[in-house]
């Protein structure tokens, strides 16, 4: 009989009864049209925002399901006139929240309200340059100044705030200036990075925004160097910095003869379906914002727990981790197979039409064969 509390996140835990967190795409509208926007023209681009009452009713179900946190996204969540009411609804139902925003519509009043809840984990503001010319070129005239004003208002009210840099062809040569601006001038504790991904408008504008192999190499080198300079204050879940670190680890493991990585050799790259779910702006439940075509049910009509536990598409996504990479022609003979997880199913789907195969964009061998190079090993120390 064991009474002591165990470490939170015990790896022996299996699938949960309900998701721990949800991404709520509370609106499909946005006041900007960024050239690499993953939302517009994607399957998530549906022209129907739910009412306040529908969302509040759903939050009550989230409370019954003991969901711990939600992330307000869009479109642009601050476009909703009732966002304050939704935020208070989340807090009233014993959850925490974060917000992903372009920052241009944040007012002193809304920043103060967010702070007053005491339940905000993070507000992430998209900033793509250290000067307006760079940022506005991809996001729209005047957006840099407004985004910065929004970020500063959040900081004034001590809301945990960060910036997200989406690295694309228009700003890849300015990473040093951006890092200096955000970390030294604005004095953010840190910021995160990603690169323009093959969803939505980015696909239409791919030549304009998506990094070439050479630019990817350059970005990796710059970000690794800057992250060292700034003591780890730059983070990434995807994009050049994440790739540099992951692929370098794979290269090192191959050279040292290390057997394999945990989860390596199978499509284990996405853990989302084990703990998270998402809801489109029209109330349709989906696995995540980039698999918006995979409709699992409708909130307030289908039970969250029932969908989470029983929907065949979710079960199939979870079972993706049992698929061996050796079964794919593109992976045959790859030296990095024991270390590779196949990465994001949504990117795989966007690029190949099949979410049950490895993402071509995350293939290290392909990157090398195209002339890509990792940062030198000394810069990674």
């Amino acid at each position, binding site marked *: *009989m*064991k*009474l*002591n*509390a*165990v*470490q*939170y*996140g*015990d790896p*022996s*835990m*299996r*699938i*949960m*009864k*309900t998701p*721990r967190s949800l991404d709520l795409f509370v609106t499909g509208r946005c006041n900007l049209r960024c050239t690499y926007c993953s939302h517009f023209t994607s399957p998530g681009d549906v022209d129907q925002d739910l009412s306040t009452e529908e969302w509040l009713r759903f939050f009550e179900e989230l409370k019954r399901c*003991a969901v*711990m946190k939600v992330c307000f996204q869009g479109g642009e969540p601050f476009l909703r006139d009732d966002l304050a009411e939704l935020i208070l609804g989340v*807090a009233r139902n*014993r*959850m*925490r929240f974060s917000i992903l925003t372009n920052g241009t519509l944040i007012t002193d009043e809304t920043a103060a309200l967010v702070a007053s809840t*005491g*339940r905000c*984990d993070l507000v992430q503001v998209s900033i793509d340059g250290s000067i307006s010319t760079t940022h506005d070129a991809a996001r729209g005239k005047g957006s840099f100044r407004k985004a910065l004003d929004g970020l500063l208002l959040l900081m004034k009210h001590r809301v945990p705030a960060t910036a997200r840099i989406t690295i694309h062809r228009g700003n890849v040569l300015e990473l040093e200036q951006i890092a200096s601006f955000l970390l030294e001038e604005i004095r953010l504790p840190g910021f995160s990075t990603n690169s323009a991904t093959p969803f939505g408008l980015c696909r239409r504008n791919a030549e304009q925004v998506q990094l070439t192999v050479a630019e990817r190499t350059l970005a990796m080198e710059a970000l690794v160097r800057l992250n060292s300079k700034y003591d780890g204050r730059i983070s990434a879940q995807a994009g050049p910095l994440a790739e540099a670190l992951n692929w370098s680890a794979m290269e090192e493991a191959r050279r040292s003869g290390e057997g394999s990585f945990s989860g390596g050799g199978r499509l284990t790259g996405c853990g989302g379906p084990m703990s998270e779910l998402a809801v489109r702006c029209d109330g349709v439940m989906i696995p995540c914002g980039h698999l918006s075509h995979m409709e699992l049910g409708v909130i307030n009509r289908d039970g969250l727990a029932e969908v989470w536990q029983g929907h065949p598409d979710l079960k199939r996504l979870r079972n993706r981790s049992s698929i061996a990479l050796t079964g794919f022609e593109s992976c045959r003979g790859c030296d990095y197979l024991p270390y590779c997880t196949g990465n994001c199913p949504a990117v795989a789907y966007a690029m190949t039409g099949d979410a049950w195969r490895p993402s071509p964009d995350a293939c290290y061998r392909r990157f090398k064969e195209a002339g890509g190079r990792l940062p030198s090993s000394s810069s990674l120390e």
Partner: protein
Amino acid sequence: MNSIRKPIANPDLVLREEFDDWAVLFDPDSGSGYGLSPVSVFIWNRLDGRTTPAEILADLRAHFDDVPDNAEAEVTEFIDDLARRGFVGYEVPLSGQR
């Protein structure tokens, strides 16, 4: 073991029970989570302000096999630990009451 005081679970906390009978005690104000084993969950669900620790221990013995001899000490320490963390409280008697 205190036979009078009846511990009350903090109603602001959220208990997330999981498939394998383990649970997370989540504090939405701080964002922190505290893992509970199946036995701990059993005890937590009886911290209702009406049940004494001695009664909880008796329930435990009736419900689980192989309850060790030191269970009383473990239950006491567990509840005391929860109280130290602010997860459990006790009703304060009104003046004149014992």
